[in-house]
């Protein structure tokens, strides 16, 4: 009897010791790294979230920039940080999938980033200027079949969401088009508006901003894009192309699940906040709220989808 009591007592003591370790998180300020420079979309989202995160978590959230390599420097830094939940980073899909696939050594591996949540989707659409001779996607495809490589499409970056969408679509439609990368979405939009490319693989928020000057031939979404319900989806035209840039948050590998849960709850709370959703929709984004497990599955799905595309087109 005494032995049992001692054991129970010891177990209780150990439990109470452990509780502060868990219930204590978070106690110190948390660093939220943005793997891009200030002023970009990822920065904007983080700034929007910052006060709400501080309220939800009860500690200060410090936004830190670590730009370079299209995000790879930030993610390489993330995996080397202590997995105690006090250092998290924004993550972007497809970047974190495509960079290790395309570069061989990006400084990190896709599965090393432990996702916390995904909260924003930016569907990618293919657009032309209002005065373009292509009135719909079919026109474009027909022209491309007759004039291989003549159609010039702009987009942001190489081995990026835009580039992959271009490659996937070209393959699906059996055509060859030229892809001209620009340094960043803003520059690709400038090149498009100036008439230097014939079509643009654009992010939904940019397309919404210039909606009065352009015609969207198709969106890479499953459902029609709410801000532009008349624009068809690739799927409805017969091409299974789903392209979007998704933003979320991730933590170093080995971060304990309990810690991830706390962060996940905070992020999802913000993602489901009606005011936040309203703002995102107004700017042309699609608010999403995927938790840690769902995000992990989504990322794994994308790896499977894109690995063969990269392999095929990378020479």
């Amino acid at each position, binding site marked *: 009897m005494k032995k049992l009591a001692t054991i129970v007592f010891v177990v209780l003591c150990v439990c109470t010791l452990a509780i502060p370790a868990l219930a204590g998180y978070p106690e110190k300020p948390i660093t939220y790294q943005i793997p891009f420079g200030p*002023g970009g979309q990822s920065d904007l989202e983080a700034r929007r979230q910052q006060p709400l995160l501080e309220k939800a978590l009860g500690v200060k959230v410090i936004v830190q920039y670590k730009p370079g390599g*299209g995000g790879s420097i930030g993610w390489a830094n993330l995996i080397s940080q202590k997995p105690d939940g006090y250092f998290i980073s924004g993550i972007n899909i497809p970047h974190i999938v495509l960079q290790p696939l395309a570069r061989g050594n990006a400084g990190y591996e896709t599965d090393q980033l432990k996702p916390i949540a995904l909260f924003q989707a930016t569907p990618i659409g293919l657009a032309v200027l209002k005065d373009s001779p292509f009135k719909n996607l079919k026109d474009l495809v027909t022209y491309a079949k007759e004039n291989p490589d003549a159609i*010039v499409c702009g987009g942001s970056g190489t081995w990026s969401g835009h580039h992959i969408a271009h490659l996937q679509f070209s393959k699906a439609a059996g055509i060859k088009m030229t892809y001209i990368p620009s340094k960043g979405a803003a520059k690709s939009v400038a090149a498009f508006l100036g008439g230097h490319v014939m079509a643009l693989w654009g992010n939904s928020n940019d397309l919404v*901003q210039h909606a009065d000057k352009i015609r969207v031939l198709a969106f890479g979404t499953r459902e029609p894009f709410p801000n532009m319900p008349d624009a068809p989806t690739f799927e409805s035209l017969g091409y299974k192309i789903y392209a979007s840039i998704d933003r979320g948050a991730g933590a170093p590998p080995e971060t304990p699940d309990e810690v991830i849960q706390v962060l996940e709850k905070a992020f999802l709370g913000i993602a489901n906040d009606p005011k936040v959703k309203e703002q995102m929709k107004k700017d042309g984004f699609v608010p999403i709220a995927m938790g840690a497990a769902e995000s992990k599955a989504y990322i794994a799905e994308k790896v499977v989808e894109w690995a063969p595309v990269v392999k095929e087109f990378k020479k």
Partner: protein
Amino acid sequence: MFDFALTGLYQVFIPGNFLVLCIGVFMGITFGALPGLTATMGLALLVPFTFTMSPSAGLIMLAGIYVGAMYGDAIPAILINTPGTPAAIATTFDGFPLAQKGMAQHGLVAAAVASSFGSLVANVVLAAAAPPLAEISLKFGPPEYFWLGIFGLTIISTLSSGSLIKGFLAGCIGMILSAVGMAELGGDIRLTFGFTELQGGIELIVALIGFFCLPEILSSVIGQRRAAYAEKMTKPSLDVIWQVITALFRRPTLMFRSATIGTIIGFAPGAGGNIASMVSYNEAIRWDKHPEEYGKGTIKGVAASEAANSAMAPGSLIPLLTLGIPGSPPAAVILGALMLHGMRPGAELFTDYADITFAFIMGLLVAAFLVTIIGSFGSFVFSRIINIPSRYLAPAIVFMTVLGSYAIRNNMLDVWIMFIFGIIGYVSNKLKFHPAPIVLGLILGPFVEEGLVQSILAGKAAGGTFQYMVYRPISGVLIFLCIMSLLWPLFAAWRSKQKEAKVTELTGSKAERDVRDA
């Protein structure tokens, strides 16, 4: 439009807003002045503060920061040969020699007045003609960027007044350095030799501190044990301010030309103001009757550089406000701030949100005036800084540059790069191999590459790369300018030989003259 301007002006002078503007200008000058901190960083750090304010107040503060930083970067450029931000590189060319001659205050006041003037001119253009200019800026396509980059490189022929070959050699080295890291357009990683931190490339400011600041310290302070940074002490006085202002007002062509160059380069999206000051400096030399004065310490050089780099700021806001395309990194941060306040760039800024937009623009204008006042009076304090004995000043400067280099990307490797470039810069100076062309190559490399690669791709699709790159109106103009720019030094040399020949004809050879005049 006038009534909007007036309401905007009224907004700026509301006590709360005006206070915030002044704070912004102070912070801007500070950020611009500390090497390693940039206008972009300053704006990014202070944007969250602006959330709690009304949109007008927040934007007015950002306006103050931007304008302040465009002046602030001249301070270290003049005092310690270190551009506070890359935009002030050309300010070191004449600014530091001025400080050496004990005329640091002249330089500082010239910088303040020229900055204000440049800002003013560009703001008027912004307020009056933003939308049509933005349309023009869109016409800059890949070939135009390529030729603009090449034009920038031709400046090397003026900068390397000694040996043209070595100057262009330095430029090529700079361009190779710019290739380190991820190739934006190819996606490959280049020249990182296994250092993953180098994937982001070589940070420009780190290279600048290395090439400009450290060699000066190594050679004078350490090598020659010079007790003070400058050869002569600076004695600030009120007269100087008045002298400089009148001197600059007597040169309206210089001022207007520099401001115009800055505004134009500002609104070519992404071209970045980093080259505005150098192009303006180059043009100032080209059109001056006494080009030999440049480089030895003349306020004309400082004015040309500063007017242009300050004009660049409002210029870069033109494509931003009308199309949402930032013309420079600080503009990108301002875009973020606008979006956070729910204001989307485009026509609505000038209609639905006109009162806030014009408050912002007027804020830029008033900030320009503030810069003259603060800069002129501040020059008393600032110019005394280099009178501090170097054994106190130099360690502080090195310490600050280490801090700054680290702070940019939170990367220790950057500090090492700064150190290595410092040594390279020191050795280069000894080998009479000026580092300025290397920096020019580093800045322009990405433009030239982007223009080249995109043009090749588009040219292939269009049927002929050469045709694509040359048979275009704006490209044609730029190509013409490049050729002119390259040949000009030869023409100028020929012209001065003619003058010399004429003088010899009239008064005997130089040797004879020297004997006579002795």
